[in-house]
C-alpha cells in the first residue's frame, strides 16, 4: 500500500472507530451505583427521647399511653379491677394513682392500713426483699451493698416520706435534697445546670428550658442508667471497602 492508500485506510478506520464509540456511548446509559438499603434509624429516634422517668400522672398528661403501667404489680390478677378507658381506648388513670411512679413503689400506696412494715435482714445485714415485691424492687444503689437498707432513705415511721441522715423529713416527690446529702459534687453541677439533660432554650431570656430533678431520670433503687442499644455505625464510604476496626491496642 502506498502512502496515500495507507492514509485513506487510517482515516476511514478511524471514522468507523469513532462511530462505534459513539454508538457505545448512546447504548450504555450512565450506570447508577446500586441503591443502598435505606437506613431506618429515624424511626428509633424521637427528638425528646431518652431514659427520663416520669410519673404515671406526667405520662398521662403528656399524652402517653398508661397501659404500659403494670397494674397487676399491686392488684390481684384474679380479681381484675375495672380499667376505665377514654373514647380513644386509652387507659384513664384513677386520680388516687397519680403519684405512682413507673417502676417505683411507694410502700404507703399499698401498706396504708395494718402494722408498720418490718424488714428482715440477713446475716450480712442486707435487707431481704419480701417475696411479694421481688419483681418490682431491685436494690442496686451503690456498690459494697451500701444501700441495701431501705431505711437509709425511707422513714421507717412513715413509709410515704423520706428522711435524710440528719432527720429532715422529705416528701417522696422532693427527693433531691436527700440525693444531694450524699452526692454533693453532682448536686453542685446539677444546680449549675451542667448535670443531667436540659432541653429547650439556651437563651433563657427568649425561651425556657426544662430541667428535671434527680428521680426524673434515675431510679432511686437502681440509679445507674440501663445499658442502651447503640444506633447503627456510620455508612461505609461509597466506592471503598468498609474500614476495618483497629487492631487491639498493642503499641
Amino acid at each position: 500500500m502506498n502512502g496515500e492508500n495507507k492514509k485513506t485506510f487510517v482515516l476511514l478506520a478511524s471514522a468507523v472507530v469513532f462511530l462505534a464509540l459513539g454508538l457505545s456511548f448512546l447504548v450504555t446509559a450512565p450506570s447508577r451505583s446500586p441503591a443502598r438499603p435505606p437506613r431506618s434509624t429515624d424511626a428509633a429516634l424521637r427528638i425528646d427521647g431518652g431514659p427520663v422517668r416520669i410519673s404515671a400522672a406526667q405520662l398521662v398528661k403528656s399524652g402517653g399511653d398508661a397501659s404500659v403501667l403494670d397494674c397487676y404489680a399491686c392488684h390481684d390478677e384474679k380479681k381484675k379491677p375495672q380499667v376505665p378507658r377514654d373514647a380513644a381506648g386509652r387507659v384513664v388513670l384513677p386520680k388516687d394513682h397519680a403519684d405512682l411512679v413507673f417502676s417505683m413503689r411507694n410502700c404507703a400506696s399499698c401498706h396504708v392500713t395494718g402494722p408498720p412494715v418490718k424488714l428482715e435482714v440477713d446475716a450480712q445485714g442486707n435487707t431481704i426483699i419480701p417475696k411479694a415485691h421481688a419483681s418490682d424492687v431491685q436494690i442496686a444503689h451503690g456498690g459494697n451493698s451500701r444501700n441495701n437498707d431501705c431505711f437509709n432513705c425511707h422513714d421507717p415511721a412513715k413509709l410515704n416520706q423520706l428522711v435524710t441522715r440528719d432527720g429532715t423529713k422529705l416528701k417522696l416527690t422532693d427527693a433531691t435534697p436527700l440525693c444531694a446529702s450524699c452526692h454533693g459534687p453532682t448536686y453542685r453541677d446539677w444546680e449549675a445546670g451542667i448535670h443531667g439533660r436540659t432541653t429547650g432554650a439556651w437563651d433563657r431570656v427568649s425561651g425556657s428550658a426544662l430541667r428535671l430533678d434527680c428521680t426524673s431520670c434515675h431510679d432511686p433503687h437502681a440509679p445507674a442508667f440501663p445499658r442502651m442499644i447503640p444506633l447503627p455505625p456510620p455508612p461505609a464510604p461509597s466506592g471503598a471497602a468498609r474500614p476495618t476496626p483497629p487492631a487491639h491496642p498493642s503499641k
Partner: protein
Amino acid sequence: MKTAVRNYAVFLWRSGALVFEGDWRYFAWICTLFAICLVGLNAYSRQLVEGLSTTGMTDQVSWGVYIANFTFLVGVAAAAVMLVIPVYIYRNQELHDLVIFGELLAVAAILMCLAFVTVDLGRPERFWHLIPFIGKFNFPGSMLSWDVIVLNGYLLLNVHICGYLLYCRYQNRKPAKWFYIPFVFTGIFWAVSIHTVTAFLYVGLGGRPFWNSAIVGPRFLASAFTAGPAIIILALQVIRRFSTYRVPDKALLTLRSIVQVSMLINLFLLGNEVFKEFYTDSLHVASARYLFLGLHGHNALVPWIWTAISFNVIAMILLALPLSRSLKWLDVACVLAIIGIWIEKGMGLVVPGFIPSPLGEIVEYLPTWNETAVSLGIWAFGLLCYTFFLRMAVPILQGTLNRSNESPAPASP
C-alpha cells in the same frame, strides 16, 4: 493596522490548516488520541450528571487521581524552564529554538493541569467565582488562589513568548528583545513559583502531618526537574524522528545532565524524608508507614511505592554511568524516571496524606473506571495539543511555513 491584523489572521489560518496535513502515521496518531479523548469526554459527561460519586473518592480520601495528575503536570510545566536557563543565561545559541519546544510542552502541560482541576470540581460551572473582582477571590489567604494566578499567568507568559517568537520567524523579522526577553527571565522565576505554590497547597495544612513538612517544596522541584526534562528528551527525539528538524545531540546531553543531578537530589531528599519519619517513630508516622510498609493490614500502595523507588534508583544509576550517553539507555532511564516520579508524586504523595483520616480511620482509595477514563482523556487531549503545536512550530522554525510562500491575495471581488 488593518494589514497587521490581516497578516496575523493569515498566519493563524495557515498554521491551523497545517494540523490537517500529514502522512498516515500522523493521522493514525491523532485519531487514536481523539478516540481516547472521546471516551474521556463521555466519562466526564457521566460525572457531570451523577456527581463525583462516579469516582473512587470519599470524604476520607477526598483527592485522588485527578489532583495527582495535576500535581505531576505542574512539575512538567515548570521544567520547561530548564531549557531556558542554558540558552538565555549561559547563552547557548544552538539550543535557542529548542526553548520553544520546551515552552510549547509547558503550554500543553498547563492546559492539562487546568483540565484536571476542572474535572475535580464539584460545581465546575461556578468557576467564575474564582475570577478576581467578579467572584470572591480569597487572595492572599488561600494557596489555591495563588495557584490560579500563577498557573494562568504562566500559561499567558508561555503563549506570548512562543507565539511572538514563532510569528516573528514566520515574518522573517528579528524579534524585538524588549518584547520577549523580560518575559523569558520572568518565566524562569515564575516556573519555580508555580511548582512551589502547588507544593504549598499541601505544606500549609497542619491537620495533615504527612504533608506538613518543609521538605515537600524542595522534593516537588527536584522531582519536577527530573521528570520534565526527561519528557523533553523523549519529545525532542520524536521531533527528530518524524520531521526534518535537526535536534543537536548536545541538547539531549545537556538535558541528560540536568536529569542526572535532579534525580540525585530527588533521591537524597527522599532519604531525608524516610529517616525523619521512621527514626522519630512518632504517631505522625502513620501515613508514611501506610505508604512504605502498610498499616494495620492495609497495604495497597506498598508495591507501587517500592516500584517507584526502584525505578528511580535504576534510572539514577543509568544516568550516572557513561552508558546513558547512548540514546537507547538514555531513553530507558528517562522512561523509568518519568514513571517512577509519576507514581511517587501521585500515589506516593496525594493519597497517603489522607490515610489514616484525621480521626484515625483507614479508608483506602482505588480509582474507578470512569475516573481513569477521564484522566486518560485529558492526557490524550494534552498530547493532541502538543502534537498540534509541534505540527505548526516545526515548519515555521524550519522556514517551510513563511510569509514568503503565502499564496498571492485573491483578486478583489
